[in-house]
């Protein structure tokens, strides 16, 4: 059982963190303007940037 569990966290650790940040971002802007909005830009900016960087990176 043990190696399997470590596998899970190895694979899903970072995506889970990104997912939680996105969720926090989606929720933050519902609470207010200004500061709360900028939290949402960070939360949603992380997946957007990672996705775009992945596409932009070409074989060197």
């Amino acid at each position, binding site marked *: 059982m043990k190696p399997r569990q470590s596998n899970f966290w190895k*694979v899903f650790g970072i995506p889970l963190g990104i997912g939680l940040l996105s969720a926090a971002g989606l929720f933050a802007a*519902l609470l207010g303007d200004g500061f709360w909005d900028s939290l*949402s*830009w960070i939360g*949603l900016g992380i997946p*957007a940037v990672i*996705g775009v960087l992945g596409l932009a990176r070409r074989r060197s």
Partner: protein
Amino acid sequence: MKSKTIRRWSFIHTWTSLICTVFLLMLALTGLPLIFHHEIDHLLGNEPELKQMPADTPQLNLEQLVAKAQAHRPGEAMQYLAWDEDDKNGVIAIMAATAGTEPNSSHTFMLDARTGEAVETPSANGGLTMFLLRLHVDMFAGLPGKLLLAFMGILFVLAIISGTVLYLPFMRRLKFATVRQDKSTRLRWLDLHNLIGVVTLTWALVVGVTGVISACADLIIAAWRTDSLSAMIEPYKNAPPLTLRAPATDLLKIAEKAAPGMEPDFIAFPGTRFSSEHHYAVFMKGSTHLTSHLLTPVLIDAGNLSVTAIAARPWYMDAMGMSQPLHFGDYGGMPMKILWAVLDVLTIIVLGSGVYLWLVRRKAAKS
């Protein structure tokens, strides 16, 4: 994970996504410009600008505005009055042949609250963004169209879940964000599909689920009418039809007194689907940022202006209210709209690469 389990999830992922892909592509493509519909309508000159007048110019009262609206479109019935978000002197009026006319046949325009002058709002009645919106909402097919898209949305959510399960066996030996560039085009797109899919997961789930909820709006409103509205208007069941509508002048004052601390969002006139045959319904919204999406209707007798009921909000009406900002992405300024657009394009890429990967594998299996 056993290979049999992987094959099962793979089957689910393949077919849920293949069935919904065409519709999801249409939704993502029409949704992209709709994120910026305000800006587009503004550029096209389809959004009205009210005249400049001294800041303290007094406003007409509601009944005077109703009279102006009726003079603008004689013979039609008033359905709704709402307040413009950008200009506090803008009152949005929606009228139609009868109060019960379905929304797509209504006519929307704006009244200048100071003069009662009617200003046309072409973007609310037709034009490019309205065309895209109708495609996005129901493909011009009414309720069946909405329900079909809701079903496609559910398949999309299933595809996301099964895709997430499959992420594990695919990525077990790879570090996060690995994109194998030099093996084959297929592998590069497989890795990109996995990477972009997993990082946009939360956003896509939220937009997908809130889209499904919005697509079911007609059913939700119908449920509200039978669940809560009908109980509140029970005493009016055998009342004779309303002949003389009491003036709308004081509706806001009455509603604010009945629901203190809340702000008016819109008024539904008697006979519309948000009201009864005998009532004005003033929909009040909460005054905080979060609660401003939650509406509480105050039912006011349209004959004698007494408050019949302050309706409780069933959970599904709240779910519908909260779904709107979370689906539109219009609650965090321009940077959020741009991020919404980027995530939308990334979703299109996930959909497209998914189809590509399926085609390549099928070809390989055949030969």
